[in-house]
């Protein structure tokens, strides 16, 4: 057991409702990056879904704006032990993107501008559990926080909520994404404290 440092508490606040095990509440929005922040402007942004049959569906910024927009208020939990309550996002439910996609595959590899990847079961992206977002706290999503467009999957640890999202590749078998290849849990449920594989 490590020694403790008197008076050190990090920047943490008392929580007014239950937190997942081992989590601490913060008012900040720490930035975790595995690489340089990609510069993607709205005019060049594209999102695509690639199915196991080779079919590709694409959306550009105008197509995204034409989809049904939702406002989402949700708690988020980072595997590095910070949680934030009531974060506000504006975006499109992932369900809307799958309305005209034919796929039997059960898994998704999420790809981002800059090369980041993360894996998810498809069912964790559907039924109102995940959004493709472009606003946070009433402001356009800043590049540092994943702008112009970020995936939000709030019921899993926040590394699954890929910044700078550019597409989904449907997979019949689950393959690990970037952090999952490096020892983090394949699924990452914060309430079950699935931090490491």
């Amino acid at each position, binding site marked *: 057991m490590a020694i403790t440092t008197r008076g050190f508490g990090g920047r943490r606040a008392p929580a007014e409702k239950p937190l997942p095990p081992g989590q601490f509440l913060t008012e900040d929005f720490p930035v*975790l*990056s*595995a*690489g340089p922040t990609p510069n993607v402007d709205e005019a060049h942004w594209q999102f695509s879904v690639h199915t196991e049959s080779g079919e590709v569906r694409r959306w550009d910024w105008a197509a995204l704006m034409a989809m049904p927009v939702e406002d989402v208020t949700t708690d988020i939990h980072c*595997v*590095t032990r910070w949680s934030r309550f009531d974060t506000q996002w504006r975006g499109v439910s992932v369900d809307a993107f799958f309305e005209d996609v034919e796929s039997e595959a059960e898994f998704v590899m999420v790809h981002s501008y800059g090369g980041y990847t993360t894996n998810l079961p498809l069912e964790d992206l559907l039924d109102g559990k995940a959004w493709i977002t472009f606003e946070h706290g009433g402001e356009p999503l800043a590049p540092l926080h994943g702008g112009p467009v970020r995936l939000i999957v709030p019921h899993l640890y926040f590394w699954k909520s890929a910044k700078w999202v550019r597409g989904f590749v449907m997979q019949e078998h689950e393959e690990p994404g970037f*952090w999952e*290849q490096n020892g*983090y849990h394949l699924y990452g449920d914060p309430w079950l404290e699935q931090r*490491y594989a």
Partner: protein
Amino acid sequence: MALDGNALAGPLAGIYAFDVTTARARCAHCGVVARLARALVFASAMGIVARCRACEEVLLTVVERPDGTSVSARGLAWLRP
């Protein structure tokens, strides 16, 4: 924010038998050879990602887990003290 490869010294002390920051490494993606101290390093509480300063592809990833340190070096063609 990007740091230098100097930041790899602590997490990798005790993993390699030599100081990795002065070691030379060849990028498996673009072939550039450089000391790891010159890599582009992104450090967060999740882990450390060292990228080639020439092509920005991942050289090395280090995750300090409670049960020990996990290193992925698949972006290195070789590493030499």
